[in-house]
């Protein structure tokens, strides 16, 4: 944005001319000057900018959580010491020798390192381990976008609304120097996200760069940890004691915010259709991608600003349980979402069928006519299951077409893109070992576990058992202190036969370790013969292909099933 800067190495002579022209507000395609923006145009643009600000704020909070998580990890680390683990403090044992982290060069026990994927870079060729702290730091660089902007974009910490920006700090500069020397001439403007500009002034000033501000003003807050520590976990920055002031921080902000609607948000008003529509089945004229079809009716009422969506029926859905049937329901949402409330409704569940008749009308309120032009309705079909509802297919329709008169549509469902679990989840590996005659269960790791302790973390461990199990074997993992994304990589054996397996279920329950009171329940998962969808598939794969490791993520459910 800085036209004065001479040092842009990319700008060749022609381009200089061009940027001069850009500066003068004349284009390469036209010589005549353009009329200034009208009030309507300005309004439209300001609305977009405002929407973008919301996105940026949400993003700043997300980055803030990533930063806070790393910071928490850093605090709970034991610190480097001779012959002990940097993270958990465990000392070297015969079967678990310490590893050296190839990045920070500290030692860590096998449970606190990850093996690195093979790298092209010669730097990593010597050691193949990375400590969890370095791994998390690396994740933060990726997830926050810092890898691209060469410094952390602005963020908002979860508990106290503190914003930190790094553009003018020593750190940012040193990082830019260290990171990429080709940035000269560009470091002058903010490295974070210029997409967070305020509505620019649309008068014809030479440049509106100066009017750019970040959404959140960066009021200074006293951080008791310095910035270098967030970006890298230097030895010097490591806190050596566990007695931290972390629990003094309020954790309200860290808690999962339930998506309760605002006053404006929409309650589902369901109304059974008095008599089922007795329409003759029309031939399927639309291509069916193998995920079935869905019939809906859309009716907009501009008097009440409401949109009535009648979900009639679905045909040819994919089967999710052992018998090839499903328990489908539909989740409806108006997209794009606005602000923090989400405009979602769901139908009731129709049990044990691939051809459900829903015949249910759901109403969305507060839909304006301009919404119709810009928004669409997303319908996702899920298989109802208490251990996690799997997506069976989805369709999106633009609302444009129902503005004038009600329409009835038959939609081809497309395959589930969202089958990767989100939210609290576990990475689990199953392997039936014919040699050991046992099911080998590896609890690899979990992610985004709910915080249950007042410090904003949990101390998770997992209990697991097979049911029915003639040996009544019960296993437990170790406890990962203050960790919402614990890595266990712990293996457990259940003696059983493949024929038995197809009648058994594996139950995992996740707990937060508490002293002096009962452990808090974090979530559970049941895999096995009576499970459904991806859980069933994982189980069957394990039976069908013994002596192979089958690794998969699964969502945890927050119901405690015993």
């Amino acid at each position: 944005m800085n036209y004065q800067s001479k040092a842009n190495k990319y700008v060749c002579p022609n381009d200089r001319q061009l940027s001069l022209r850009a500066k003068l507000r004349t284009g390469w395609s036209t010589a005549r000057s353009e009329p200034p923006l009208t009030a309507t145009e300005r309004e439209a643009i300001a609305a977009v900018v405002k929407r973008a600000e919301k996105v940026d704020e949400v993003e700043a909070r997300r980055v803030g959580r990533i930063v806070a998580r790393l910071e928490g990890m850093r605090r709970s680390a034991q610190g480097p010491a001779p012959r002990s683990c940097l993270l958990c403090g465990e000392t070297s044992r015969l079967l678990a020798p310490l590893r050296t982290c190839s990045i920070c060069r500290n030692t860590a026990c096998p449970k606190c390192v990850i093996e690195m994927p093979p790298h092209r870079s010669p730097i990593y060729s010597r050691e193949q381990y990375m400590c969890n702290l370095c791994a998390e730091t690396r994740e933060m660089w990726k997830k926050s976008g810092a890898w691209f902007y060469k410094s952390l974009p602005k963020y908002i910490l979860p508990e106290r609304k503190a914003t930190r920006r790094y553009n003018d700090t020593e750190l940012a500069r040193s990082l830019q120097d260290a990171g990429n020397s080709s940035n000269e001439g560009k470091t002058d403007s903010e490295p974070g996200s210029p997409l967070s500009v305020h509505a620019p002034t649309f008068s014809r000033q030479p440049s509106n760069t100066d009017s750019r501000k970040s959404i959140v003003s960066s009021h200074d807050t006293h951080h008791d940890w310095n910035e270098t520590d967030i970006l890298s976990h230097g030895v010097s920055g490591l806190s050596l004691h566990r007695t931290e002031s972390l629990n003094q921080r309020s954790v309200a902000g860290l808690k999962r915010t339930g998506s309760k609607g605002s006053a404006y948000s929409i309650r589902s008003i369901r109304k059974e259709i008095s008599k089922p529509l007795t329409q003759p089945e029309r031939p399927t004229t639309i291509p069916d991608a193998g995920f079935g079809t869905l019939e809906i009716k859309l009716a907009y009422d501009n008097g009440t600003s409401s949109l009535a969506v009648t979900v009639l029926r679905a045909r040819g859905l994919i089967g999710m349980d052992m018998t090839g049937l499903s328990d489908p329901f539909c989740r409806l949402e108006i997209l794009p979402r606005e602000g923090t409330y989400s405009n979602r409704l769901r139908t009731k569940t129709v049990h044990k069928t691939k051809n459900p008749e829903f015949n249910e009308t759901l109403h969305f309120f507060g839909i304006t006519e301009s919404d119709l032009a810009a928004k669409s309705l997303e319908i996702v079909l899920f298989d109802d299951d208490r251990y996690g509802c799997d997506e069976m297919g989805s369709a999106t329709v633009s609302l444009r077409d129902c503005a004038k008169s009600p329409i009835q549509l038959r939609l081809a469902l497309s395959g589930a893109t969202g089958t990767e679990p989100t939210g609290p989840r576990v990475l689990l590996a199953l392997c039936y070992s014919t040699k050991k005659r046992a099911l080998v269960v590896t609890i690899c790791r979990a992610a985004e576990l709910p915080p249950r302790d007042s410090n904003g973390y949990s101390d998770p461990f997992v209990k697991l058992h097979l049911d029915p199990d003639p040996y009544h074997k019960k296993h437990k993992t170790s406890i990962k202190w203050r960790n919402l994304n614990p890595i266990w990589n712990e293996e457990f054996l259940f003696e059983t036969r493949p024929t038995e397996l197809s009648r058994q279920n594996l139950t995992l329950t996740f707990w937060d370790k508490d002293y002096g009171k009962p452990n808090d329940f974090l979530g559970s998962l049941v895999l096995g013969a009576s499970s459904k969808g991806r859980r069933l598939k994982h189980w069957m794969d394990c039976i069908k292909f013994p002596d192979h490791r089958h690794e998969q993520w699964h969502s945890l459910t927050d119901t405690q099933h015993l």
Partner: protein
Amino acid sequence: MGGSDIKWQKDAADQNFDYMFKLLIIGNSSVGKTSFLFRYADDSFTSAFVSTVGIDFKVKTVFRHDKRVKLQIWDTAGQERYRTITTAYYRGAMGFILMYDITNEESFNSVQDWVTQIKTYSWDNAQVILVGNKCDMEEERVVSAERGKQLADQLGVEFYETSAKENINVKTVFERLVDIICDKMSESLDSEPAMLAGGARGQRLTEQPQSNTNPNCNC
């Protein structure tokens, strides 16, 4: 019960993703930028031409290589009169879709100028894909695919011919751009480990003998 799962999914859908990439679609007016975005984000198309006012964006989350990537895709107006506004958004963009219309020679000739805009205003490791849109209009074609490819090679970027109308290569272009950015991400982290370890190296307190060759260790 299912309800609580839904709640989780709700929470998750809002912020639960691994990376956020900001992309920008640029090119002359009426080459099909808005249509391209609508096709991708909403799978819709309209033949009515509604000129984009300044800027707009849509958000879409995609799954690539086990990662959830949230895309904020900016659609820009091609006209000069919005240039100040649109270029302000170049700087945050990690990827650009530079579009021309295969039935419009002028839009193709402008590609070089758009490249200059990118180089002037964007962050310099931003990735670019060149796209020749409206490839369904074979009869009206004036820019051959070869010329497009040649120009892309010359610019050192990837090239696709697409149709927002017939939904040809739309998804491919976005996925490819996400992949390119992901590659760039790994590459930049691998080549700049200094970013990760900061001052930590060299300050290590102990020299631990390396014992990672123990074959008995299977934890």
